[in-house]
C-alpha cells in the first residue's frame, strides 16, 4: 500500500507562525484545514501583479463551473478538495500602442489557479529590420487556486517616431500546484498565447528641394541662391528632417454607430438640461 498522501502545508510553517493570508491577493475565501504555502515563483522572473477581478470579468462559476479534478488522479495523489480545480484561463490578450517613439504593451489574463506565468515580448521593426526587443517574464502565486487577474506591462523605445511597426506577443499560463512530501507537483496547466500589432504613422516622403531657378531635384539637399553657372557641391545644404504625418489613421475595429443622450451641464450648479438624442457614426451616402 503505497498511497502517497499529499501534504499541503504544513506543520513546519505553522510552527513558524505563518498566517494564511495571501499577501499578494488578499485572504483566500475558503481556507482548508491544513494549508498555508504559496508555490514558489520561477527563479529569475519578476513578480506578477495579481488583481482582484471586477464582477464583469469574473468567470461565473455558478452558471458554468470550471472543470474539477477528481481525487486520486493519475499522479496517484490524494488531492484536497480545495485543489481539485482545473487551471483555467477565461480571458487574455496583449495590447500594444504607440506614444510618440515609445511602444507600450499590456499583457493581461484572468485565470483560475494558484500559480501563473505571463510573458510579454515587445519588438520594434522598421523596413524589415528589428530595431529593439525586450521580454518581461513574471510569475505569481497564491495559496489556493482562485480567480485572479494578472497584468504585465512593458515599454520599448527605439528612437523612431514614424514608419515603424510595434509587435506584441504574450504567453499566459496557469497551473494548480500542490506540495507533496517531497516537492511541489504541477497537477495541471493551461496555456494560451496572443499577438497584437500597432503601426506608427507613415513617414512623409523625402522633401523635394527645389533647385531654383532652372530646375528641381528630389533629394535631401537644398540649393542656396547663387548665380547660374557657379553651382558646386558645397552650395547644397541639407534639408530639414521630414516631419511625420500626425496621427496613424483610423484604428481597425474602431467606429460603428452610437446613439446617445446629451445633457448640457450648468457650471457651478451641476444642474443638467436634457438636449436630446443624437447618433454618431459612419452612414452610407
Amino acid at each position: 500500500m503505497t498511497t502517497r498522501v499529499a501534504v499541503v502545508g504544513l506543520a513546519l510553517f505553522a510552527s513558524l507562525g505563518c498566517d494564511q493570508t495571501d499577501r499578494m491577493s488578499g485572504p483566500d475565501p475558503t481556507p482548508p484545514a491544513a494549508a498555508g504555502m504559496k508555490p514558489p515563483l520561477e527563479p529569475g522572473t519578476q513578480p506578477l501583479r495579481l488583481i482582484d477581478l471586477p464582477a464583469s470579468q469574473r468567470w461565473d462559476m455558478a452558471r458554468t463551473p470550471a472543470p474539477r479534478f477528481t481525487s486520486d488522479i493519475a499522479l496517484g495523489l490524494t488531492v484536497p478538495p480545495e485543489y481539485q480545480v482545473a487551471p483555467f484561463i477565461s480571458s487574455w490578450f496583449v495590447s500594444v500602442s504607440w506614444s510618440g517613439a515609445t511602444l507600450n504593451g499590456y499583457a493581461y489574463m484572468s485565470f483560475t489557479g494558484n500559480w501563473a506565468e505571463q510573458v510579454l515580448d515587445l519588438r520594434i521593426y522598421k523596413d524589415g529590420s528589428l530595431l529593439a526587443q525586450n521580454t518581461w517574464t513574471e510569475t505569481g502565486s497564491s495559496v489556493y487556486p482562485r480567480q485572479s487577474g494578472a497584468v504585465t506591462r512593458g515599454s520599448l523605445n527605439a528612437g523612431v517616431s514614424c514608419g515603424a511597426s510595434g509587435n506584441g506577443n504574450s504567453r499566459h499560463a496557469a497551473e494548480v500546484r500542490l506540495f507533496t512530501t517531497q516537492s511541489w507537483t504541477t497537477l495541471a496547466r493551461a496555456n494560451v498565447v496572443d499577438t497584437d500589432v500597432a503601426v506608427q504613422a507613415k513617414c512623409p516622403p523625402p522633401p523635394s528641394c527645389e533647385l531654383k531657378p532652372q530646375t528641381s531635384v528630389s533629394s535631401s539637399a537644398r540649393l542656396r541662391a547663387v548665380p547660374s553657372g557657379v553651382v558646386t557641391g558645397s552650395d547644397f545644404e541639407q534639408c530639414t528632417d521630414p516631419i511625420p504625418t500626425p496621427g496613424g489613421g483610423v484604428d481597425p475595429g474602431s467606429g460603428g454607430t452610437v446613439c446617445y443622450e446629451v445633457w448640457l451641464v450648468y457650471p457651478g450648479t451641476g444642474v443638467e438640461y436634457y438636449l436630446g438624442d443624437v447618433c454618431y457614426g459612419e452612414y452610407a451616402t
Partner: protein
Amino acid sequence: MSHLTTLVALVAVLACMVPLAELGAQNPAAPTTATVTLVAKPDLPRGAKVIVERRPTMNPQNVILVDLDRATAADLAAAVQILAGLHQRTSDDPNATLRAAPRAFTPPPDFDKSHYAKLMKAGLVQLLIAPETTVPGVGRRRAVDIQVTLPPGRLRTGHS
C-alpha cells in the same frame, strides 16, 4: 421665471439644431487623437455603464466615467465614439460642459477580434490598476489617461 424658461428652451433648440445642420456635411471629419481620462465610478446615474463628459473649462477636458463592475470593451468603445460626436458639435457654446450616455451601440463587425478592442480592454485594465487621484468635478477616484483616435463620422438625430 418665464424668461428663464424661454432662455433655456432657446439654448436647447440651438444646441440641438447643430447636429441637424451637420447632416448635410459631405466630408466626415478626419480622425484626430485625443487624451481621455478614464475615471472609475460605481453606481452611475440612470443605470449607465459609462458616461462621457466634455468639459472645455476644466482639466481634464475629456472624461469618461466607467463603472468597472459592469463596463466592457464595447462600452468603452461606445464612449470614445460619443466623445468624437461631442467634439463635432462645434457650434455649441465652446465653454459648455456636455454630458452624454450611450443608449445603443453597434460596433463594427470585426470589433471583437480587432486591435481596437484590445486597446479598449487595455484601457479598462489600466484603470483597474490605476492609483486613486483627485479628479476635479468628480472626486478622489482611480483615474488614468489614455490616448485614443477619435473615429471619423457624422452626426444625425437620434431614434436608433
